[in-house]
């Protein structure tokens, strides 16, 4: 058989092959832009910060510096970013779980409509939403002007903006509309007869919620938690606009290293460290969850 015929037969006889072929362009694109780019970043993180045009020299200093007293600022910001992201994740879940619950169990008509209506804010420009919180919280902003106007306070509150609380509030609000969806979906999927069985066996509402509803909704909640936490550790816009000095996060430092501090290799190193620590935290988290599940005998 000629080569051409052989190839033709291979193509038509092999379904798997055709599937991979269709997938290839997209896969390749994502691979290059994600993986190859990441490798480039890693390589760059080992460079000495020489002016462009000079020879490339390699060093471990970018990383080792972070462990010295000189790198304290970086460590502080890393911990702060992790902490703020955690706070924000928890408050998003606490804030959105009730509404997701209400939508799943107590709304019977036009569920889809309400779902869309509630998630629309998420799709509106993130930048604008952070900006609107700046407008609300600032010294001569909405909250102060209302409180002053109503006579509740005599002087504008100064501590609403440019701190960590502002960052957490803004981030919570920005992501709330998003988190509703996965939590809603996993609540919606719960077999109602399970809940009826629990009631039938004597559970009050609270007990049933704690023992049946909540655990069964966990997949959606955990998915949302992971996504929120991972994405927000490196946030830039919110701390930049409403964080001030005390609310600065690691993302701001990285951008600053790339721009006015002009130390790209260090910026690369800090980014890599952030990613590694984040991966570590997530892995530990997943293992804990997995471990607890096995302990309880639940798969």
């Amino acid at each position, binding site marked *: 058989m000629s080569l051409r015929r052989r190839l033709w*037969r291979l193509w038509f*006889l092999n379904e798997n092959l055709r599937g991979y072929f269709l997938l290839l362009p997209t896969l390749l694109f994502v691979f290059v832009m994600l993986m190859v780019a990441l490798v480039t970043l890693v390589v760059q993180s080992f460079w000495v910060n020489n002016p462009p045009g000079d020879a490339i020299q390699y060093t471990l200093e970018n990383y080792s510096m972070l462990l010295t007293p000189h790198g304290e600022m970086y460590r502080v910001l890393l911990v702060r970013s992790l902490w703020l992201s955690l706070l924000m994740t928890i408050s998003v879940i606490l804030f959105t779980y009730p509404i997701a619950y209400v939508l799943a169990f107590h709304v019977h008509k036009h569920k889809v409509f309400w779902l869309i209506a509630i998630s629309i804010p998420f799709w509106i420009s993130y930048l604008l939403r952070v900006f609107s919180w700046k407008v609300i919280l600032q010294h001569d902003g909405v909250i102060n002007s209302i409180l002053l106007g109503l006579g509740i306070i005599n002087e504008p509150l100064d501590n609403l903006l440019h701190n960590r609380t502002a960052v957490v509030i803004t981030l919570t609000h920005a992501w709330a509309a998003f988190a509703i969806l996965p939590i809603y979906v996993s609540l919606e999927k719960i077999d109602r007869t399970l809940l009826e069985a629990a009631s039938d066996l004597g559970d009050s509402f609270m007990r049933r919620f704690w023992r049946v509803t909540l655990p069964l909704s966990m997949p959606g909640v955990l998915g949302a938690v992971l996504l929120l936490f991972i994405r927000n550790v490196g946030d830039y816009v919110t701390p930049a606009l409403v964080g001030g000095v005390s609310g600065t996060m690691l993302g701001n430092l990285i951008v600053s290293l790339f721009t006015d501090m002009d130390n790209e290799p260090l910026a690369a190193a800090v980014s890599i460290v952030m990613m590694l620590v984040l991966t570590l935290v997530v892995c530990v988290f997943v293992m804990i969850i997995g471990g607890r599940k096995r302990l309880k005998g639940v798969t």
Partner: protein
Amino acid sequence: MPSSEPMISISGVSKHFGPVKAVNNVSLDIARNEFFAILGASGSGKTTLLRMLAGFEIPNTGEIYIEGEPVSEIRPNHRPTNMVFQSYAIFPHLNVRENISYGLLNKKMTKAKINEEVDAMLELIRLPNYGHRAAHQLSGGERQRVALARALICHPKVLLLDEPLGALDKKLREEMQIELRQLQRKVGITFVFVTHDQEEALTMADRIAVMSEGKIIQVDTPGTLYETPSNIEVAEFIGNINLLRGTVESTSDNTSDIVVIDAGQVGQLSVPKGQNKINSGDSVVLAVRPEKLRITTEAPGNGYNGIRGKMIAESYAGDRSYYYLNVEGLSRRLRVANLNEYPSAVRSKANEDEEVWVVWPIESGLLLTA
């Protein structure tokens, strides 16, 4: 025109998906203008075989010839075949006219000519005013007819049908069985259809190929398949049949072709030898169809076999009744089917638990060796 040359010739074709051999070394000839059925249970490989005829699968080994030309490596859009899919595959975004004329879009025909052909097709399928109906407005039977028209308008040499009547309700199915046969006669081309419903195959086909686990186990006309299945598998697959196992007592001498077998507790039974080559002591099976049996109170006379049994149940099906009996020495219940020629009040029924004779003419039995 050499009418002796088969329209389709399948030669040593096998197809496997991974470790599973769906079609295992199948060879088959289908004549011109034949209404041919491929009958098998799900998983027998019949659909895969049909898809290979259509071009959607390529055989791993062997070759398929249509009118003498090898077609295995010709893609479906270039083959002289057209297919009616099990789900009918009516394009939901096109109306009836657009669906039917779809296959003509590539052929350089004027709009007027296309319209003419579509009108002719609409007449043929007896839906003359349906041209502008939307796809979702069609009932199951109407979809099938549109699918037929869409395929036939391309003037294929062979029309392939995948479980054509499966999605229709019983009454419609019976109607369509006749309609399809008439259509085939009218259009005058080879039809090959695949089905798991043996009644459908028996009613519509000129010849049937019975498939099981990728192999063809018998190809014959409906009558031959039913009356003289070549082995137990085919016998059980087509219709219902009673199987009585035993050993050969005496082979026939030259004067008669009746064989006597010893069926253990059931007794000694006579059966025509048929085409079988057997020797004394061989293990054989006597097969007899339920409708050939009669329930009587008297022992059988000459020319009849008879066995004793106890009635355990009767099943009434309107035009016929089924009777089930326990027979000493038979592992499965004996099944008898008789037409209800007389109304229930008049029909004499054996009482349950009564011992009766079940008799049948010797020549109604069938000897099977495998």
